[in-house]
């Protein structure tokens, strides 16, 4: 490992090391500037990644434009999630160093997964961040729901990890290597053992991406976890999983069945997610089901992989992450230290807390795919890819389910702005600076990507080659 390699891998090291440092600092000075410290680490990793465009490779890991893109993406979301969490956790009595430390660890894990060049590192990265999320989801010890959510996530997660591991094992068994590049190069007609492995890997990742039928944990976990955790879970972990899937999918590129499976997954996910969201009364569950549906569009992009689906999926996940951060972030702010969760309880909040309300509304419009929000460009990219790939039927289903989605997103907007607030507490907590920044970043990203997506699109074209 040369010095150059070290420099290239430094962001990962900063995050992992930062995690340890925060843990130790918490032990030394409990209640100190832990969040700020963690923020500094994430920011450092972010700046490093952007400032040093290096590529490097070592066994199992490789820093490529692709991984650097994801590093920026993940660190960005991590930054926002940390900003959100600092205030939220104080209000909810979540104290201690474990939160920022675990979060840093999760980021490191996700970064590793995106930079993986063999299946072992991929697996370790994925499981590392999932493991971190087991903790984060249940981090609120006083919350009944937090515990329940933790349990559900844990059991589902371990089962899917087993399935994923089995898939990797079968692939290894049939090909004798774990290196992604070698696996993708082999032109041998895929034998059943290999395909079974790929299929199991797909199911394992489907869990992380909340694809039907591996989606059932999503609403419960999103609802039970603290909102900033949900914000991170629904964005960064999805992003890392998309990256993982993009790394893995070339393995089955020649197999038509992979397409068919994804087709079925996309269809089921689109329909299930959007339909189930219709009947929700809890805003977090609604957003959870909507995130299931959003992953359906990502699946649609994967179906259209040969026709530019990769960059569509990447753009989609970025746009979705911005919206997810803004929406869960706004929920974290608007919940205001209470258990406010029913959509009904959001009546009139758009006026009582205009900035958070606006962020939520913009995010919802983005999720609904209405311009000028980024979600529109994302859907545009996905539908373009789908049509180019000849997936007209699926595109039409996507469009129609988007229509259904508009309805439930609007329900929240309606509650925010159009229903009278029925005499609740008058005092409004002003937005703290960190919350303001945490909401402003994704909201600005949504609008910027919605109006001028060119830079990102060009970048994606370059890295997805």
């Amino acid at each position, binding site marked *: 490992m040369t010095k150059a390699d070290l420099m290239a891998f430094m962001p990962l090291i900063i995050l992992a090391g930062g995690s340890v440092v925060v843990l130790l600092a918490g032990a030394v000075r409990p209640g100190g500037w832990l969040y700020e410290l963690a923020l500094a680490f994430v920011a450092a990793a972010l700046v490093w990644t952007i400032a040093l465009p290096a590529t490097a490779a070592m066994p199992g890991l490789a820093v490529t434009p692709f991984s650097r893109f994801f590093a920026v993406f993940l660190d960005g979301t991590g930054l926002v999630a940390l900003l959100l969490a600092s205030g939220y956790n104080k209000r909810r009595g979540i104290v201690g160093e474990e939160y920022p430390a675990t979060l840093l660890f999760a980021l490191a894990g996700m970064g590793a997964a995106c930079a993986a060049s063999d299946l072992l590192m991929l697996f370790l990265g994925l499981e590392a961040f999932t493991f971190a999320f087991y903790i984060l989801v249940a981090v609120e010890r006083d919350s009944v729901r937090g515990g329940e959510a933790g*349990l*559900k996530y844990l*059991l*589902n997660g371990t*089962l*899917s990890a087993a*399935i994923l591991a089995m898939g990797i094992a079968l692939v290894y068994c049939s090909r004798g290597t774990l290196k992604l590049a070698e696996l993708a190069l082999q032109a041998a007609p895929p034998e*059943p053992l290999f*395909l*079974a492995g790929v*299929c*199991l890997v*797909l*199911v394992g990742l*489907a*869990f992380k991406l909340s694809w*039907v*039928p*591996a*989606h*059932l*944990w999503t*609403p*419960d976990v999103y609802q039970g976890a603290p909102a900033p955790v949900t914000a991170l879970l629904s964005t960064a972990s999805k992003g890392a999983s998309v990256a993982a899937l993009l790394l893995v999918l070339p393995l089955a590129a020649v197999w038509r*069945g992979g397409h*068919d*499976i994804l087709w079925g997954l996309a269809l089921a996910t689109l*329909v*299930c*997610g959007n*339909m*189930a*969201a*219709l*009947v*929700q009364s809890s805003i977090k569950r609604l957003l959870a*089901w909507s995130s299931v549906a959003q992953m359906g569009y990502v699946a649609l992009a994967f179906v259209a992989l040969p026709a530019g689906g990769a960059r569509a999926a990447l753009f989609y996940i970025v746009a979705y992450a911005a919206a997810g951060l803004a929406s869960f972030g706004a929920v974290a702010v608007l919940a205001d230290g209470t258990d406010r969760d029913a959509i009904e309880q959001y009546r009139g909040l758009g006026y009582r807390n205009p900035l958070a309300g606006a962020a939520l509304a913009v995010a919802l419009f983005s999720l609904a795919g209405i311009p000028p929000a980024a979600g529109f460009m994302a859907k545009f990219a996905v539908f373009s890819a789908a049509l180019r790939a000849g997936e007209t039927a699926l595109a039409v289903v996507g469009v129609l389910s988007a229509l*259904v989605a508009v*309805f439930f997103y609007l329900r929240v907007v309606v509650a925010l702005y159009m229903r009278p607030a029925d005499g609740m507490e008058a005092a409004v907590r002003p937005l703290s600076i960190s919350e303001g920044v945490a909401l402003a970043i994704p909201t600005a990203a949504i609008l910027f990507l919605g109006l001028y997506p060119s830079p990102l699109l060009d970048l994606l074209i370059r890295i997805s080659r």
Partner: protein
Amino acid sequence: MNIYLALILLLPLLGGLCNALLGRLLPRRVGVIVACGVIWGAFACAVLAFVGFTGPVRVELGSWLAAFSFQAPIALYLDQLSLGLTLMITFVCGLIHLYSVGYMQDDPAWARYFALLNIFVFAMLTLVLAENLPLLYLGWEGVGFCSYALIGFWYTEEKNATAGRKAFITTRIGDTAFGIAIVWMYQLSGSVSITHLNSMGALIPAAVVTTLGLLLLAGAAGKSAQLPLSVWLPDAMAGPTPVSAQIHAATMVTAGVYLLARMFPLIGSSETVRAAIALTGGITAFYAATCACCQRDLKRILAYSTISQIGYMVLGVGVGALPGATFHLLTHAFFKALLFLGAGCVITALHHQQDIFRMGGLRTKLAAVYWPFLAGALCLAGFPLTGGFFSKDAILGGVAAQGGALYGGLLLLGLFTALLTSFYTFRMVFVVFHGEQEHSLSPGPLPQIMTLTLVPLALLGLCGGLLNLPAYLGYEGVLDGFLGSIPGFGGVEQASHADEIALQIVAATLSLAGLGLAWSRYTGSRRADALAREATGPSGAGFLLNGWYLDNLYWALVINPFNHLARFLWKRWDEAGIDGTLDGLARLTARLGGLPAAWSTGRVATSLFGLASGVAIILVYLVWVTLS
């Protein structure tokens, strides 16, 4: 000439706008003077135009509708026909405006009244002077609107407002046919200029000409209250009486006749159209005359008589006796305006009493009204040597000249109608003015201007025959000569002089017979008897009183179904049908949304099962793919 024509139109328009916009600010006297002044100014211009008239002129004042081949500029066309009508309109309307000054002296809404009256004149003149059909249509609809607004002038009473609405809608049904005819002619010739269209006759297939003619006839029937669209005119009497005189007797209602005459070179080439026009006119004349015999409202009698007289004119157009029809149009304008104005005097004097059975014996008390009124009645009844006698005879002569069973029948019908006309006219005169005064209505004072305006009209009505004396007197009629050069007006088939004299003798006899019949029934000793019998409503009178129950027929056939259909479509189709379906669809979607949501039971085993089932499905699929 341009300036005269422009002024003829602009003066009434400006007067109308002045009163409409500033009417509330101006003192009454100024407003009234403006209103009357502009009309007389227009008349003066018309006279000047007449003096300077050497031949038809076309004047383009500005552009209006101009899109590609569709060119309808604001262009006027002054020929003998439009010039004659313009003179008549400005003159009669001028008198009626003067009359209105007296009639409306106590009404606070005078500004609205005069504004509408002026705008009406503008629209009517536009109609007459228009060079192209869209512009004619502008006038046509404009007079319709003014008629609507003036019928419902006293809007607080629902009856009046409803009458206005009825008039507007009924005439618009005809207008629609007219509109279709216009666009059709545009499609055929690429032009909407009247002169151009009239020169196209030969190039258009006969069947098309027939259809066009029937459409125009329908348009004319609406405006001129011919069957089957006649129902609005009797109700239109709800408006102020000068309005009835101006709009519903002298000018607007004859617009249909004008239209048919104007377009005759085009549509007259179709035998069917001519027969249809003649039939419509003849039957309407008869129909309205029968109805007039039993009316007891003074203005309704006049309204039915108007319908009947216009029926004659239409009949005249149908047989190609265009000069005769125009002649009758002019004399009718004079004497019918006179009768309405006279009736207005009577009604005003009797404090808005319109029931003739509650009048009587007014001959002496309203002598200044009686004599002009009598003059008008003589004209209407076709009393020998009055204007109405000659003009009606010109039409009947035209019918007689046609020959054949159809026209023979129409001639007989026309003659019988003449008898009826004479009868109901004098019934009216005798019941109102003769006998003893019923009840305790004592006539109040009348503004002098109201009675004075009757005189010129009476003179014109009585002497109107001089305009166009019959050919057998040795020289060509003034009007015939004047109009003869217009396409379609010349070369009218003339009955031989002997026939014509015979016809006139018959007509005169019938007129006198009607007079005698009315005299014997409504004067002297039998008067009380007749009045009592009619007041209780003899059998069959209800049929005639209600205009053959045409209104009821329309209610049953059109209006009620329309109301129900409208409500049905709204409630059952729009709200229950379309919206109901969509709302149902939304509910169904929400229901279906419950399914995937119900899958999420909250038990962790369910989600584990989901994951496992994913594995199972995917592996089964794999096996299936591998095996097949």
